[in-house]
């Protein structure tokens, strides 16, 4: 019974060890003694395994290239954030999809129809859902300012709670807390196509003037976007699922492609340090592009029949080995 169970609590382990020692000392030939000795063996085995893990090293071997990549990328982003905070001028290209948010909400207000926002169909442990919620807070602030209504159907309970928190905060920030309606942010179902059926029905009945799809989507992306298209809504989509991007591009008015979607919150906030993080991201992109070009040149030299080819080939193989491990 005990062998199959992991004994993680330190206090519980000490008590069990104490009991086991007691058993060894006093209850030599009883069933309880046998049971406690089993416990002692299990605890000792776990201790031995833990000791082995500790001596194996503080750092997981083979993860060094990944760690270096994260440190360099994060370093670039933090450095540019600090520069922006210090007041350095940062140029950011316009993103038409995000500039259209205000127009879409304004159109909804004029037409007296709601704004529909869908933060994908994944849970809060997906970064795309978190990015979707950050965009939602900006859209909700605009709807509060324009006195438009916002509908947020969700496919996860936790996303519903996070969305409610975000929308409530935005309405408070806009000074329109009286207009906040918690029931407009509701849970439908975890089931992918059940969710789509419900939202599509709602779209056909209520005819929202603006639809936002920001998050992680799969096969439902086109069903939602085509339904939105059929009711004549302005549609703005954003996702990092590269397989769904063509569907959104075909059916929506504006699409945030991958990194644009991730940059949306920073762009909409306009805060200098957040804009700085986007510049840092661009700097990291330059480093990646340089490394790719270097790799192409080295691979080309290795493929040519020149005296240096063999040495270059060896270098490339060792780099591949390091990255592949």
């Amino acid at each position: 019974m005990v062998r199959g169970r992991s004994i993680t609590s330190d206090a519980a382990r000490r008590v069990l060890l104490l009991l086991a020692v007691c058993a060894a000392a006093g209850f030599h030939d009883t069933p309880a003694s046998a049971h406690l000795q089993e416990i002692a063996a299990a605890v000792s085995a776990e201790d031995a395994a833990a000791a082995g893990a500790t001596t194996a090293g503080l750092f997981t071997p083979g993860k060094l290239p990944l760690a270096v990549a994260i440190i360099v990328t994060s370093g670039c982003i933090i450095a540019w954030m600090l520069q922006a905070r210090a007041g350095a001028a940062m140029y950011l290209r316009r993103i038409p999809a995000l500039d259209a948010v205000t127009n879409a909400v304004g159109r909804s207000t004029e037409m007296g129809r709601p704004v529909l926002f869908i933060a994908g169909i994944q849970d809060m442990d997906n970064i795309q859902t978190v990015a979707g919620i950050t965009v939602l807070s900006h859209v909700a602030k605009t709807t509060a300012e324009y006195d438009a209504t916002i509908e947020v159907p969700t496919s996860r309970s936790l996303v519903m709670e996070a969305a409610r928190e975000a929308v409530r905060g935005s309405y408070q920030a806009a000074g329109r807390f009286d207009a906040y309606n918690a029931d407009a942010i509701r849970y439908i179902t975890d089931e992918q196509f059940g969710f789509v059926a419900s939202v599509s029905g709602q779209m056909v009945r209520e005819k929202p003037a603006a639809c936002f799809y920001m998050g992680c989507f799969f096969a439902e992306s086109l069903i939602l976007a085509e339904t939105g298209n059929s009711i004549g809504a302005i549609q703005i989509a954003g996702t990092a699922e590269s397989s769904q991007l063509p569907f959104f591009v075909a059916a929506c008015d504006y699409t945030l492609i991958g990194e644009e979607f991730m940059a949306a919150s920073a762009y909409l906030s306009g805060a200098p340090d957040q804009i700085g993080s986007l510049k840092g991201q661009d700097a990291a992109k330059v480093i990646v592009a340089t490394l790719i070009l270097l790799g192409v040149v080295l691979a080309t030299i290795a493929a040519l029949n020149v005296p240096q080819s063999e040495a270059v080939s060896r270098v490339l193989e060792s780099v591949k080995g390091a990255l592949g491990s």
Partner: protein
Amino acid sequence: MMRIVAMAIASIAGLVMLLSPFFPDLESVGAQSSEIFNVIAAIAFILGAGSLVKVNLSRIGRRDAGWGYALVTLLCFAITLIVGLGKIGVPPNPQFAATPWAGEKDAAGSAFAWIYEFVLTPITSTMFALLAFYVASAAFRAFRAKNREAMLLLGTAFIVLLGRTFAGVWLTGGLPEWASGLRLENLSMFIMQVFNTAGNRAIIIGIALGVTATSLRILLGIDRSWMGAGGGSA
């Protein structure tokens, strides 16, 4: 105060998850964080179910457009809940024959399994099948040759679609060996392996960097808009 606590929890949990793949000592903490998330998600489901019932009841009460669907939703929800919790029709577990309700709720032959197999699966398959028509209507709009870019897209799609069917092989199969690169199936493969893969990788690299920047902004508490636009920036 609540915002600071929420931000601190998000930052600490995020940092632990970030570091856990690199440090063996943190691996178990990272796994435990995931388990805690699952527990919280399970508790939040009660709130979700509450929201479902409340919203649909009020829709029925107000006789909103489509209130009949709300009624069907509530009925289905109640039936599935009762069938699942009551383990109706669940065959007894041979290991614990004396214990009632020891069988799995979705064991073969149970009412829950029947609902899943003969109600839910056909309905979801029907919704999925609708996708074919949506693809056709979206493709019709996307491939209209309105400008130079659209014409390029149309031409590329034409080659790829034909190259992946027997028609493509039949049309250009007669080309001599030295011109085999112009056969539609080979052109299609070239487009997919070179242009499509290159574009896709560029997008994926951008996404990876975007994820890093977004995560850092949230972990460092610079982007707090996930708590509402009032959270704003640090």
